Every structure is written in structure tokens, then in C-alpha cells.
């Protein structure tokens, strides 16, 4: 095995890296990292990526993959700091009040701007105006699935069942909840949402046939779908998803529901143009690397490496569509 020869050195690097990471973490509260003064020499220090979710989840993994690439391109360290809380709002609030110098940036979720505002007070809602979008990153689509024991294979089957469908969600104000709620609204199916505290308990409940259906991110479900332990009913993207080519979209099945999660790179409002250009260039180079492409595939992510304006338009459209659809069906996400 080739690793054995280089292993000791790697471990040494690892230990050094760990020490550095601990040191960086410790410095996080003190403003020592943003030492870059002149605009021309950006970046001259570490670029800190904050994540509004715990380590190990998809937001975290995407941030880490991108941060690693940007670190290589720009030749500086890119520590990733997890600041979970309030669906990412906590980290977002911190980022928007950070100095707009390009040394504190974050990959953020669309749902924080399009869905969460539907469930919290207007004062608490995070606004995209507080940030500069640097680039789109990727799309993370949703799939509605059921336990094979239920016998359902399509949304139509759920309707025919003629009973109240109990569906698991990953919490209030998530895309998973919205997609299910809109589908049942459009199909006129009686339903009850059963919110779980995140993806893992939601998946557990579905595998144990505790709920009739659940909507989750494709990456969470795909292994169990492949193993035949879950049956996919619909995806909520505009077109079919290459990772699950046989699964029909909700639109194909006659229900006008389109909900996707996507992520984009943001910096605090007022970040200088040349800094943003540097970051964009580094991100683009990262997107083009084979490792990053492989990462996307392995995690069932679809690239959405689009210009900032396109991200903003999507966010705007989604927010209005979701609101009007919820109003139309008379659904409240906070049930």
C-alpha cells in the first residue's frame, strides 16, 4: 500500500496542521487575521469561511471543498469556522456586520433568504441586500421518498390512498417541508407534517416506516434508494436530475412545484470590486478542478456556478413564488 511510506510525514503534517487550526480557532474572536491593508495585495492573510451549520453536513462539506480550492489558488490559509444556530441566521448576522475586506466570507443557503423569512418575524429575517454575492456554487435537490412497505410509487398513488398522509420534514422553514406542503396543496391531499430535528432522524423515521413519506436532500437518500430500502416518488427540480434519472419531477406528474436548495458564495456588503474579482477567479479555478467536480458527483450536487445577478434573480423569484403558492393553497409553514 503506497500510503505506508509517506504516512509518518503525513501524520507530522497533520499534527502541525491541527496545532495551526487550534491556534486559528483561538484567534477567531480577536481581530488579528484581517491584516491586509492595501487593496492591491489581497489576500495577505487568512480568509475565514464561516458556516451556519454543524460540521459534517452538506453546507459544511461544500464550504470545505471550496475553501480548500481557494486556499490552493490564492496561497493563503482558509480556516472553516462552524457557527451553527437558527438555521444559519446566526452566522449570517455575524458576517453582515464583519469588515467588508474579503477576509471573512461564507457559502450561504438560498433557503435562508427564500423560505426562512416565511416562518420568522420580518425583523429576524436575513436579507440578501446585506451581502455581496460573489458567485453561485451548486444546487442540492430534494427528493420525496417512501418506504417500500407503503406500496406508493408516485404522487398520484398518495392521492388514491384517500387517507391523511403523514410526512416527515427536517424542520420548520426548510425546503423539504415547503416542497411537501406545496405538493400536497397542489394535489389536494390531506396531510400532516411531522417535523424532525434534522436529516438523520427524518431518514430514520422513514426507514422504520414511521411516517408515510419524507422529503430530503438527494445526497441523504440516494444510498438507501439504490439499496431498495426507499422508493423515490418525485424530485422537485425543473428537469430530471442526472443522479436519479428515472425519477419523475413533480411538474411532470402534473403538480407545479419546484423547490431546490442552492448555495452561493457571499461577502459582507461593500467588499471592494478587485477583492471580489480575485475571489471569483479563485472559485472558478476551483470549480474547474477534477477533484471538485468529483466532489460534486459524489455528493449528488449539480453545479450552479452562475453570475451573482442570476443568483439574486433566482432568490427573488423563489421568494415571491413560494409566498404566492402558500397563499393560494392556504398553507402556513408554522402550522
Amino acid at each position, binding site marked *: 500500500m503506497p500510503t505506508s511510506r509517506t504516512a509518518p510525514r503525513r501524520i507530522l503534517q497533520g499534527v502541525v496542521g491541527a496545532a495551526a487550526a487550534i491556534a486559528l480557532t483561538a484567534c477567531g474572536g480577536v481581530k488579528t487575521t484581517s491584516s491586509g491593508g492595501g487593496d492591491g495585495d489581497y489576500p495577505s492573510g487568512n480568509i475565514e469561511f464561516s458556516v451556519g451549520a454543524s460540521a459534517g453536513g452538506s453546507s459544511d462539506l461544500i464550504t470545505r471543498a471550496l475553501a480548500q480550492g481557494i486556499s490552493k489558488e490564492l496561497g493563503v490559509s482558509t480556516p472553516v469556522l*462552524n*457557527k451553527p444556530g437558527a438555521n444559519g441566521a446566526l452566522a449570517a448576522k455575524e458576517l453582515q456586520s464583519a469588515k467588508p475586506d474579503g477576509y471573512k466570507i461564507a457559502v450561504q443557503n438560498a433557503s435562508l433568504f427564500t423560505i426562512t423569512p416565511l416562518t420568522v418575524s420580518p425583523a429576524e429575517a436575513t436579507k440578501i441586500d446585506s451581502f455581496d454575492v460573489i458567485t453561485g456554487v451548486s444546487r442540492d435537490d430534494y427528493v420525496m421518498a417512501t418506504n417500500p412497505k407503503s406500496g406508493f410509487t408516485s404522487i398520484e398513488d398518495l392521492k388514491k390512498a384517500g387517507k391523511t398522509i403523514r410526512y416527515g420534514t427536517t424542520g420548520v422553514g426548510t425546503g423539504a417541508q415547503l416542497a411537501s406542503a406545496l405538493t400536497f396543496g397542489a394535489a389536494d391531499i390531506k396531510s400532516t407534517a411531522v417535523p424532525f430535528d434534522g436529516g438523520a432522524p427524518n431518514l430514520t423515521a422513514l426507514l422504520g416506516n414511521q411516517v408515510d413519506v419524507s422529503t430530503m436532500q438527494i445526497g441523504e437518500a440516494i444510498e438507501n434508494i439504490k439499496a431498495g430500502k426507499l422508493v423515490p416518488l418525485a424530485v422537485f427540480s425543473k428537469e430530471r436530475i442526472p443522479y436519479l434519472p428515472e425519477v419523475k419531477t413533480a411538474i411532470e406528474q402534473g403538480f407545479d412545484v419546484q423547490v431546490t436548495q442552492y448555495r452561493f458564495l457571499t461577502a459582507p456588503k461593500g467588499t471592494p470590486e478587485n477583492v471580489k474579482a480575485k475571489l471569483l477567479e479563485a472559485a472558478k479555478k476551483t470549480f474547474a478542478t477534477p477533484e471538485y467536480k468529483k466532489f460534486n458527483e459524489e455528493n449528488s450536487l449539480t453545479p450552479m456556478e452562475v453570475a451573482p445577478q442570476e443568483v439574486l434573480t433566482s432568490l427573488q423569484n423563489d421568494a415571491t413564488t413560494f409566498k404566492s403558492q402558500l397563499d393560494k393553497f392556504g398553507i402556513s409553514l408554522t402550522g
Partner: protein
Amino acid sequence: MDISPILEGFGVVLEPANLLYCFVGVIIGMLIGVLPGLGPGATIAILLPITYGIGPVSAIIMLAGIFYGAQYGGTITSVLLRLPGEASSVVTVFDGFALAKQGKAGTALGIAAIGSFIGGTVSILGLTLVAPVVAGFAVDFGPPEYAALGILGVLLISSIGNGNKLKAIIAACVGLLIATVGRDTFTGAERFTFGSLNLAEGIDFIPIAMGLFGLSEILYNLEERHNQVHSPAKVGNVWPSRKDLGQAKGAIGRGSLIGFVLGVLPGGGAVLSSLAAYALEKRRAKQPERFGRGAVEGVAAPETANNAAATSSFIPLLTLGIPANATMALIFGALLIQGIQPGPQLVTEHPDVFWGVVNSMYIGNILLLIMSIPMVGVFVRILRVRPAIMAPITVLITLLGAYTVRNQVYDIFLVIVFGVLGYLMKKFGFEPGPLVLAFVLGSMIESSARQSLLIFGGDPAGFLTRPISGTIFALVLLVALWPLIGRFVRRKTPARVEEKISS
């Protein structure tokens, strides 16, 4: 059963590089386990970037080593400093710290190390032989079963205390109340958040435990030292005697089984297992009043159970792709980084990863046992350090540990608030244990009970008609009525004897 992949797994582990990673993992794990607050979760998050560069098997072997190594290390602070690093070692504090005060810290640590080793090993054997069967059991546990287990847990809390029952109940109620803080996951309604985004997520276990146990103890000792000359803690024997081992034998055996079974349950399995193991030993004991005052079984049972549970919590991850706790979620992430999707097909698609990791645990546990024995002697000496030096260091590490959980200064203030609360509680004779355990179980009971009712369409009869939850509720009833039944039985036996004599 085809055992060749298992043997090949041993081949993978015994490669020098992998052995080294296993060794490094368990050492890091043990050390960070000793640092209160800085748990395996934070450590693995920091080390995650390093795993990019090494192969999947080595990476996961190391991370797993950190996880179960931390379980060994966590005991040390629970016993010596009254600082449980995780919810599952809260119960260890009761008798562990009492033993340390009597100069028997070595006994407690030695017993814990042996118990941990046996619990861990039994659990790995289970993981090797029956993982898929047990995994099915994990998904049979739906919200109603969790609600029932949680209620059983609360009932057990009331039986483990030794002090004033009323005060224990009051403390438990406060714990339940604290568990309600945060945004309601069902409706998004704000509960006791006072508009603060920091409170919206609820309060984490770490700041509460660090404050109520660690900081409060230090504050209380400071005051005591003012009033009287404090003699340095005695450090007596460093190794458990044969008598201690004999006493702990049964507890270790039962703890292994309880830990293995409950550890499979995602969310709260480890806490429940340590609680249940302790409560069971206390129930079985001829003199239950020894518990809380330095009973060896009181350390052996929970420590064995939580280690067994830590190991079996790998089962849902490796067989279903479900991370059972926050640390498992990180290992899940690490596998994804390596391009491996944990799920039902892991064992067939990546047998090297599955068996490599499982088998590395046998070796890791042996390494930990070997390391623990000399370490006990070293760590026990911590007690000889003057409190004037030890106290500030402990405070610093505690606060740092609390910070690393979410990288928020706010959590440091929470520790201080709970430290003051814990100090006041101690002054007025309240135990922090019931509060912390009720806090952990409270949120579990609330959300699972509400989920169950949504599933049942509002009809609570469903709790009793489902086989598993019905059985647990029957058990709840039995535990609740036990004192009555016990009295009845006891009254009856002597009466019969008298009858015989008179006739």
C-alpha cells in the same frame, strides 16, 4: 457467515500505517477527553481537513479512535474534577467523585478503565456478529418508543438520587424548563428566547454541564477554603483491589449489554444506557444507600455502558447511513469527503472500510487499556496539585472547551451563569445531576411525544398498542409501582413465617 472479509479487515488494520493512525487517534482521543468541554466533536471538526490527504480507511480509523478514546479520557475529569464532558458520563460523577474524595480515585479510574475495555470489546463483538440485525431494531424505534424511553429515563433519575427527593424533583423540573428554551421545532414559535438569536437554537448541554458541575464546584471550594484550612486530597491506592473487582464484576457485565443495546438507538442512546445501568445496579444492590457515597459499581456500570454504547453507535452509521450522534455526523462527513457514501451498501461496496474500522476498534481498545493503567497513576497526581493552581487552570480549560463547541463567546457567558446557579444550588442542598439529566431527556420526550401524536392523528392510545412502546410503558409502570410492590412482598413474607410458627 463468510468470515474472509473480517480476516481481510484485520489485514488492513495490521498494516503499520493504519496501526499508527489507530494509535494516534486513541491518544488524541484520550487527551481531549481529559480536557473538559473540548469533546471529540470539536476535535474531529478541527482535524477534518487533515483527512483529505490520507486514505479513507486510515482516516476513519483515526477519527473513530478519537471518538472512543475520548470516552476513556472523559472518565478522568468526571472522577477527579467532577466535570462530566458528556451527558453520558454525568452519572459517573456521583460515585466517582465521592471515591476520589475518599482517596480512592485510583480505584475509580482503574475500574472505569477495565469496565470501558470490557464494554467496548463486547460491543465490537456484537458489531462484528449481529450489526445488521441490530440495525433493524434501531429503525423500529419510532417517536412513540423514544417518548416511552424518555419517560422511563426520568423515572430512573428520581431513583438514582440519594438526597432530598423533593429537592431532586424541583431540580429536575428546572431542567425540563430549561429544555424548552429555543425556537419550537414544530411551529417555529419562540420560547423564552427574549428575541435573542443565540437562544433561538436552545441551550447546549456542554455549557450547562460545565457550569453546574465544574465551575460551581470550584466556586464552592473557594468559599470553603475561606472558612477552613483545606487539606490536600489524599491519594491512596492507585489500583482497584481484588475485592473491588469482584464487586464490580456483575455491574460490568450488565453494563456491557445495556450499553450495546441502547447505544444502537440514534439520539440519546448513550445517556439512557449509563442512566439505566446505574439505576439497575442501585436497584439490585443489597445496600442501595452506598450509591452516591462511593460505590464501585456506581462507576463501573455507567462507564461500561457508555463505552459499549459509543461503540454500538457505529452500527446505524455503518449499516444504515444514519449518524447516531453529533460525532457520528462528523465521521459521516469524513466518509463523504473520502467519496464514500455510508449506507446499507457500505459493507459490500467498501468491505475494507467497514471491517478495517470495526477491527481497528479491537486494537484501539487494547491500546487504550494498556495506556490507561500507567496513566491512572499520573492523572491521580492531579489531585495533589494545590487548588490555588488547579482551579484557575480548570476554569480556563472549561471556558475554552465551551467556546469550541460553536465558536461563540456567548457560550462562555452561559457557563458562568450556570456556574453561579450550580453554586447556589449546592449551597441550598440541590443536586445538579437531576437537573442536567432531566434537561437532556426533557427535549427528547417533548419532541418525540409531539411527533407521536402527529403520527397517531392525535390519539394517545397508539402509545400502548405499539408492541415496543407498550412494553416500555409497562416497564415504566412497574418501576413506578416497585416501592409499593416491594413493601407488599416484604410485609407478606414475615407474616407467613409467623403463621408457620404459630401453627
